[in-house]
């Protein structure tokens, strides 16, 4: 195993980790503030992919399609929050989980009704489809764009949370919803906004990946597992933790593919279980 291929594998891992992070970000945000484990998160992600496909096919404008896909997904999220999720906040976690699970089931089938059963994807925009050649492996600029977007989203979230009024309000709700309410913060609005933002981020992530992967109805079922592993290992609700763990999982599993192709996925599960056995609150969990 020479050094170049090892490094390339790590680089690929960085890109995969960034994708995981974009997928996990909304999940963490929603869990952190709203305290709901959103099972339908990946379904929104895939919805973003489908919307991107549709708008890009019609407009051929990458940026515009991206924004529209993001906003519509967020709006769908907000609608779900207002009609369903809002009514389960006060219930036990398991009911919240099942409610979002129900949403995921409906979303999956709705995608099939709207976009059919076939495979859907778009091409990488011309300028970004070129790339650099590292030891026979082409890493295109679009992959680099994903890594940069992931990092920007991380920085933006941290800045937003710590240095803006809305962010501070959100953090207040994050810490103590009852007290925040007493201080006159409209927690209801914050919850809806956070749900909108979280699902819009899912939509953005989904939209960004259509040029890279292919999309079919029910793809979400396979994505959500990885997202959960990351969020749980990181410690539920930790934003920085989720970023670091997502990148680590990406890089680590990528390198595992290279050195122990026989075992990669089991090893990941075992490591996750070991981490949880010794640090049940996750690597970056607070409590």
């Amino acid at each position: 195993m020479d050094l170049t291929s090892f490094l390339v594998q790590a680089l690929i891992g960085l890109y995969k980790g960034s994708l995981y992070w974009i997928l996990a970000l909304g999940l963490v945000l929603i869990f952190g503030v709203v305290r709901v484990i959103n099972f339908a998160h990946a379904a929104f992600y895939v919805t973003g992919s489908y919307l991107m496909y549709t708008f890009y096919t019609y407009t051929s404008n990458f940026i515009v399609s991206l924004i529209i896909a993001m906003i519509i997904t967020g709006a769908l999220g907000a609608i779900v929050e207002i009609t369903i999720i809002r009514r389960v906040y006060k219930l036990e976690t398991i009911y919240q989980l099942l409610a979002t699970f129900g949403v995921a089931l409906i979303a999956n089938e709705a995608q099939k009704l709207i976009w059919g059963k076939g495979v859907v994807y778009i091409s990488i925009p011309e300028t970004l489809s070129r790339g650099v050649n590292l030891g026979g492996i082409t890493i295109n600029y679009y992959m680099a764009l994903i890594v940069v977007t992931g990092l920007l989203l991380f920085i933006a979230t941290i800045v937003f949370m710590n240095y803006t009024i809305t962010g501070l309000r959100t953090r207040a709700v994050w810490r103590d919803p009852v007290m925040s309410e007493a201080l006159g913060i409209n927690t209801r609005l914050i919850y809806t906004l956070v749900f909108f933002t979280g699902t819009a981020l899912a939509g953005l992530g989904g939209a960004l990946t259509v040029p890279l992967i292919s999309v079919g109805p029910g793809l979400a079922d396979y994505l959500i597992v990885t997202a959960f592993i990351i969020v749980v290992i990181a410690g539920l609700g930790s934003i920085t933790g989720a970023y670091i763990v997502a990148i680590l999982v990406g890089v680590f599993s990528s390198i595992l593919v290279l050195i122990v192709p026989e075992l990669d996925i089991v090893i990941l599960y075992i490591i996750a279980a070991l981490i949880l056995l010794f640090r049940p609150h996750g690597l970056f969990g607070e409590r």
Partner: protein
Amino acid sequence: MYMLRRLRALIDGNIIALLLLIGLLGLISFTGHRFYMYIATLIMIFGIFAMGYNILFGYAGLLSFGHGLFFGVGAYSVALFTLNVYRDPLVGVLFSIPIALLTSIIVGILTLKHGRVYFAILTLALSMIFWSALIKLRWLTGGSDGLVGIPKRGVLVDLSAPTVFYYFTLVFFAAIMLGLYMLNKSRYGLLLRALGTNEDRLPFLGYSTFTLRMIALTISGVVSALAGALYAVFYSVVTPDVAYWTFGAEPLVMSLIGGSSYFLGPLVGAIIFVSLTTTVARFAEYWMLLLGAALIAMILFFRGGLLGFLESLAGRFKLGVYLRWRF
């Protein structure tokens, strides 16, 4: 006189309902209608699974996402035992009990020390490891295709006639249900309910919550594994899907549908779940959509499950409440 009092203390709405159900299940075999018998067998197997699950969930208050593991352990024990050691389904099913016992204790040691949220996550992680192992250990488990040819006709018993297998399942079902009923009435039943209600207080009464949780997990694990064992013999085939977490979440949904705080809740839930999925699956492609909608409707409107709904009706009409196990 004392015996009579003991006996009277044992009789309540639950046991009457249970005996009626067992009788009804017995009657179905006389119709000779194979599909009804098939559905009834599924109800019994999933009824056992859900009731076993609810020992942990409804009684001890521990949410497990990894019960596919126990179901899978039961199913694979029967398969491996009958195919490699001794070709008999009855011995195979009984063999799964000690294996399940051992598994439960190991799982318990690994998961019960931490809080409830982490129990849920850890059981999920363990069941996923088990699932991957079933796929990876191909020489032993047949990989993703699983193990085929689990015999219904064995050295000791021959269950190949549908009616015979039906009675075989019914005997296990009745024995397990009555056993759980006695457990519910016994001191352990009381302790497990106390555990689910206020586990932090029990140490100050001199009870080790770890031990109590371990007892609950062991009973739950063994009962779930028995369901898996029967399932494997029933289908003659076992594949890793039974250990996947979504399969393990089914008894949870059943418990909630029926009402997890009622003794018979999971069983009622199993009846509804099996019938419902059978019915909606006829709408061919959109059954998942309907399932999702049904789930949301249940959570928004019938949170106590069907039994909870009935109880609130009974309360409204001032009818006595017979089903609630807490009484």
